[in-house]
């Protein structure tokens, strides 16, 4: 009788153990990702999508979210806002994701009222400053210094390091001339227009003369008329607010027509492809960086390379860009928030939002060349530090950083949400 009881106990315990094991194995955390791999920003979006997928696999191999596997749903929406909205609804209603990794400024801003009503954390590759004020957009987060702070930092860096020091501008400096500034942007694309108010404000603070904006389509091939218009104004500094492909075309036309100005370029227009496409026209161009370039050395490079080779062996490493590394930043930040939310027993929208807002000098992205992250319930700006790169001898490289909060402590608070 006693043996019979023991056998029954063994069977019961086996069932319980099997149940616990299958339950823990079967636990998943679903995450949606909107990508542009074929649309107007696919010159940079395709590589970022690869990085997101590879980083997700790495974190899964490292134990996922406290033992729960991340199941990533990654869709190309071709940079078309209606498809982004439809895909978001699929994530919310069908896949039932706990958070979304978003892409462009247009779709991020278009979806913002919906995701905030749904209490869906949304970590975006658009660093638009418009979504960094939690009073208006509490569930929006970004994984890079916002476009407006970056744009201000680019102008500031050029003013301090080039205009004030470079012999090229000595004559004008000695005459007491004001630097002349023009923006080259696709005026129909929210990504390109998002930081324009801030950059013009910064140019005004520094005493620049501002010329008329020149419309540069993301898909444009010929920018000669825009370059001629800027030359007529006598421009010294051009802000390029598009993505790499059209920036490279504009740089080539600027060189061909002898524009003679310096160039500062937004984050998504400056990468390893720029000098390959623009050739000598890119030499000296200054650009903004969210992290280390793929061609640079950084502490987390080995895992980035290993997972690129493991998951996408068909894509040559020499074609990879900083966008791959940005994908790692995005996933790394999301994983940290989800781990914290899970530990707090709240792996859901409000729990993940609260977890993001506990980030205080979090150094997790430093291994990819990102910044220490501090987020609060009143400020979702990722960092005040602007990382600056420059094309030197045909290769882009990191050349410096500007801390805009340290430089303008009295203005920093008022710049929230610009």
């Amino acid at each position, binding site marked *: 009788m006693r043996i*019979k009881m023991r056998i029954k106990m063994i069977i019961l315990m086996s069932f319980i153990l099997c149940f616990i*094991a299958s339950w823990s*194995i*079967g636990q998943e955390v679903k995450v949606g990702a909107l990508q542009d791999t*074929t649309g107007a920003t696919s*010159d940079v979006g395709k590589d970022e999508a690869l990085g997101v997928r590879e980083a997700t696999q790495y974190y899964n191999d490292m134990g996922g979210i406290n033992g729960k596997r991340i199941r990533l*749903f990654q869709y190309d929406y071709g940079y078309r806002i209606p498809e982004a909205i439809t895909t978001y609804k699929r994530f919310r209603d069908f896949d039932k994701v706990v958070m979304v990794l978003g892409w462009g400024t247009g779709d991020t801003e278009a979806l913002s009222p919906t995701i905030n009503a749904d209490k869906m954390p949304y970590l975006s590759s658009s660093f638009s400053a418009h979504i960094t004020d939690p009073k208006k957009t509490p569930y929006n987060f970004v994984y890079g210094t916002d476009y407006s702070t970056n744009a201000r930092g680019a102008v500031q860096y050029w003013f301090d390091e080039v205009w004030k020091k470079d012999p090229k501008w000595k004559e004008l400096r000695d005459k007491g001339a004001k630097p002349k500034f023009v923006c080259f942007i696709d005026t129909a694309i929210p990504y390109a227009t998002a930081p324009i108010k801030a950059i013009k404000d910064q140019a005004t603070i520094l005493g620049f003369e501002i010329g008329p904006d020149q419309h540069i389509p993301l*898909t444009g091939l010929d920018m000669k008329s825009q370059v001629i218009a800027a030359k007529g104004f006598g421009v010294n500094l051009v802000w390029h607010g598009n993505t790499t492909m059209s920036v490279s075309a504009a740089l080539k036309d600027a060189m061909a027509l002898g524009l003679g100005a310096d160039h500062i370029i937004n984050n998504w227009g400056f990468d390893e492809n720029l000098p390959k496409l623009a050739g000598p026209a890119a030499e000296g161009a200054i650009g903004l960086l969210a992290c280390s370039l793929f061609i640079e050395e950084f502490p987390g490079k080995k895992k980035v390379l290993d997972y690129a080779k493991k*998951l996408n062996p068909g894509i040559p490493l020499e074609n990879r860009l900083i966008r791959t590394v940005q994908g790692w930043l995005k996933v790394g930040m999301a994983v940290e928030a989800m781990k914290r939310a899970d530990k707090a027993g709240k792996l859901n929208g409000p729990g993940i939002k609260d977890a993001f807002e506990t980030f205080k000098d979090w150094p997790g992205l430093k291994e990819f060349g990102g910044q220490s992250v501090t987020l609060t319930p009143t400020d979702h700006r990722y960092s005040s530090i602007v990382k600056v790169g420059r094309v030197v001898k045909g290769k882009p490289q990191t050349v410096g950083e500007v801390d805009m909060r340290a430089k303008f402590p009295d203005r920093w608070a008022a710049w929230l949400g610009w």
Partner: protein
Amino acid sequence: MRKPLLMLLIMIFGISGVMGCAGLRPTDDAGKPKITLERVDLSRLGPWVELPAPTVMGLGFVFNVDNPSSYPIKLENFKFAVFFEAPGTKEFMVLSTATVYDQIYFAPKTVSQYRVVEFLDSGGVMRALLIPNRPALQRLKLEVNPLTKEWFTKMGTGDFPFQIKAGEGMAVFSSEGVKGGKEDFFVPFEGTFPKKK
């Protein structure tokens, strides 16, 4: 009463033990799934309208999924990039990315067929030529609109007048036969159709 119960337990544990250890695992070199492009079907082709108005083209990519292992494998994610050959150049242009998350099991020691339908439109193809393919186009001195039109108008004529490639392919599988139970494993693939004559 005790003996039959004990025998039954021993048999259950014995069989499950044997099943758990026997045969090729899908992560062994010889047991790893193989994916090949069998053919491409033209599923739908709208009548050509001049750009920028869109013309639709649906392509069915039929893959052979060979599972030589002794375990069923579950496909969790299947993605590849669609490339068209620029006629007369032997170079391929990337036009779209097909991604599927439907979950499906492939039985042990079988070759199954798996179809992915991908829709292209001429506007999207034009943009793809203008952005990611622009350096290649400039190098080959090709124009965007005529090339787009050529693909969409010639596709429905003759015996596939240009090659189509499913490239940068990656299938993500899981299997109970893999150590750890649910660990993902990856199978890269690539194929062109029609095959070179």
